[in-house]
């Protein structure tokens, strides 16, 4: 049912999916297949938005038999995940991924030389085009350029919809529904990470306003190399990279280790250069049809990366190939708020990835799987809720100030980026600096939440800035609470792994941020 009144497009559905990336489209498909009517709203265009569209996810892909293949992989991943991940969730994710990809009829899967169909790795733009097609074929109603701004809550506390703006058509939208799935992705705090600029953590903020909490937010320090001045964070070709300092000396990169720490250390000293001369000739010939975007910047700048040196940088990924997100409380990716579900990078990936990044295989398998579980769960929840009456809008920061004053949003973002992306603060972490960060961000939050008011076109920017600031606060508070080093969270002042922190760090709160770990009671961090 749809009604268009004044400048408001009002729709009714069983399930609303916010975010139309990898997870959102799998969620919408599963909810439709479970019999629910579904609206999917994306901030940009469903098919090109989100970090899948510009990349090319290889899924975690292990055959079911012989059975020990998966068992071995899960055991290895438990070890590399430092015990924060769960064997049951990993097994479910592997099984769901294996059974789902071959059903994606709208993607033209490639065959290898032997004629075997290759399901595991899909090219981003083609994958997202196929997922949009699948959603359309199943009768999902897609709203493009319709960012969600805030959730609608029913009197009993359950979530019954959301509303936002129509960026291109003008006016506003509202969906009244039985259940909502947040598939808004992670956030890189608007670093230059490829394809990440619609991912500003909006879903985290909306969920927190409903009282949802988070897990694994300390793991926000994954970085990817790119040619300086470009967004091209496609990492495959860099496996053959040689890096040089300003004097032309080769920067040693210890084998097997994450390259970003030695690179970040070098970047803190001066400029870093790279060439790809070690790339075998046959691979050079194939790069354009493996990753068609990788060479674009070089070509356009007139650089031959296989022969010439070019300057490089590291782009921070925040919670994108970091792993924190909304805490999952049940098998259908329920959040801690009834009627609200989370999928993909909006959810924590700690359950499957543990304390290291899930990029490269686990994240996309998780997005596909969690999306479908959330879709099924939300459809079931929606069928148990009769009413589709509009709930109460619960957005706060940027929408309901105590008193409206002009806020320097650019300045606020610069502070957030300084704390969350700078190598010296975020890669080489230290307790005293993290404490300073939490205080600085708390002070900034007080100003933004009390006074920012987004009006007209500025409403989205205002909410986005508030969302990134809130995300930064949970991240910093969690990193401070994890008073040890584990996986990608490395504390210069606490280099050892401490068995007292073998569990997850849960965080939440807006006016007062709190963290809760196995070894500490709920600690109020805000002053």
């Amino acid at each position, binding site marked *: 049912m749809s009604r268009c009144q004044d400048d408001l497009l009002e729709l009714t559905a069983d399930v609303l999916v916010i975010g139309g990336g990898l997870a959102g489209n799998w969620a919408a498909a599963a909810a439709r297949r479970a019999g629910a009517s579904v609206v999917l709203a994306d901030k940009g265009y469903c098919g090109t938005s989100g970090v899948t569209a510009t990349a090319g996810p290889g899924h975690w892909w292990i055959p079911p038999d012989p059975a020990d293949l998966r068992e071995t992989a899960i055991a290895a991943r438990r070890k590399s995940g430092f015990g924060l991940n769960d064997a049951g969730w990993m097994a479910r994710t592997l099984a769901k991924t294996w059974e789902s990809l071959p059903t994606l009829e709208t993607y033209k899967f490639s065959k290898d030389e032997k004629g075997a169909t290759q399901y*595991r*790795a899909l090219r981003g733009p083609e994958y997202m085009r196929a997922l949009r097609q699948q959603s359309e074929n199943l009768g999902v109603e897609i709203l493009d350029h319709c960012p969600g701004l805030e959730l609608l809550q029913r009197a009993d506390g359950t979530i019954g919809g959301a509303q936002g703006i129509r960026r291109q058509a003008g006016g506003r939208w509202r969906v009244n529904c039985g259940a909502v799935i947040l598939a808004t992705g992670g956030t890189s705090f608007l670093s230059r990470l490829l394809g990440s600029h619609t991912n500003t953590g909006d879903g985290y903020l909306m969920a927190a306003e409903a009282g949802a909490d988070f897990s694994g937010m300390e793991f926000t320090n994954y970085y990817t190399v790119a040619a300086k*001045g470009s*967004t091209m964070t496609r990492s495959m070709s860099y496996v053959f990279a040689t890096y040089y300092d300003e004097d032309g000396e080769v920067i040693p990169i210890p084998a097997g280790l994450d390259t970003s720490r030695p690179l970040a250390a070098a970047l803190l000293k001066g400029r870093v250069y790279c060439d790809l001369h070690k790339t*075998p000739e046959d691979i050079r010939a194939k790069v354009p049809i493996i990753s068609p*975007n990788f060479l674009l910047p070089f070509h356009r700048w007139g650089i031959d990366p296989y022969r010439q040196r070019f300057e490089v940088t590291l782009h921070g990924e925040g919670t994108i190939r970091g792993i924190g997100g909304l805490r999952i409380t049940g098998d259908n990716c329920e959040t801690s708020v009834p009627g609200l579900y989370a999928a993909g990078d909006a959810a924590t990936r700690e359950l499957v990835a543990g304390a290291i990044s899930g990029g490269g295989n686990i994240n996309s398998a998780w997005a596909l799987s969690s999306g479908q579980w959330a879709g099924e769960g939300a459809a079931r929840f929606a069928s148990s809720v009769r009413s589709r009456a509009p709930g109460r809008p619960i957005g706060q920061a940027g929408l309901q100030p105590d008193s409206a004053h002009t806020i320097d949003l650019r300045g606020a973002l610069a502070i957030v980026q300084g704390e969350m992306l700078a190598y010296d603060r975020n890669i080489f972490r230290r307790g005293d600096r993290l404490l300073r960060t939490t205080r600085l961000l708390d002070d900034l939050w007080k100003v933004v939440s009390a006074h920012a008011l987004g009006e007209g076109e500025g409403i989205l920017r205002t909410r986005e800035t508030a969302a990134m600031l809130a995300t930064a606060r949970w991240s910093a508070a969690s990193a401070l609470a994890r008073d040890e080093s584990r996986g990608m969270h490395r504390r210069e002042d606490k280099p050892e792994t401490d068995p007292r922190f073998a569990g997850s760090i849960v965080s939440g709160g807006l006016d007062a941020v709190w963290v809760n770990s196995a070894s500490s009671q709920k600690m109020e961090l805000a002053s």
Partner: protein
Amino acid sequence: MIAIIVEDRCTNCNACVVVCPTNVLDAGPGIPVIARQLDCQTCFMCELYCPHDAIYVAPDCDHPVTVDAQAIAGSGLLGEFRRLHGWDEWADDPRFTNEHWQMEQVFLRARAMAQAGNM
């Protein structure tokens, strides 16, 4: 950032306006207007979806770049991305088949080379 829409190639179909994730472009009376260039996330998606290869996205993501329409039209760079993707009319061209699945082999090769001490 998106640098130019080459006027004599553009048919005003507005596909780029629709697909741009960050809403950089406005439909105009004629060709689309690059209305919010600084919002461009340098993702090249508009190039992929432009059926007439009329768009050039400069790789520079930190600041806008000025390019000359004629030089760009003659550079051979327009449409390169769409072709390599095997998009639209290139879909059945054997030179541009989707070999993305080979990514894993590339990582394995690099690992083998490192173990053999060749890197």
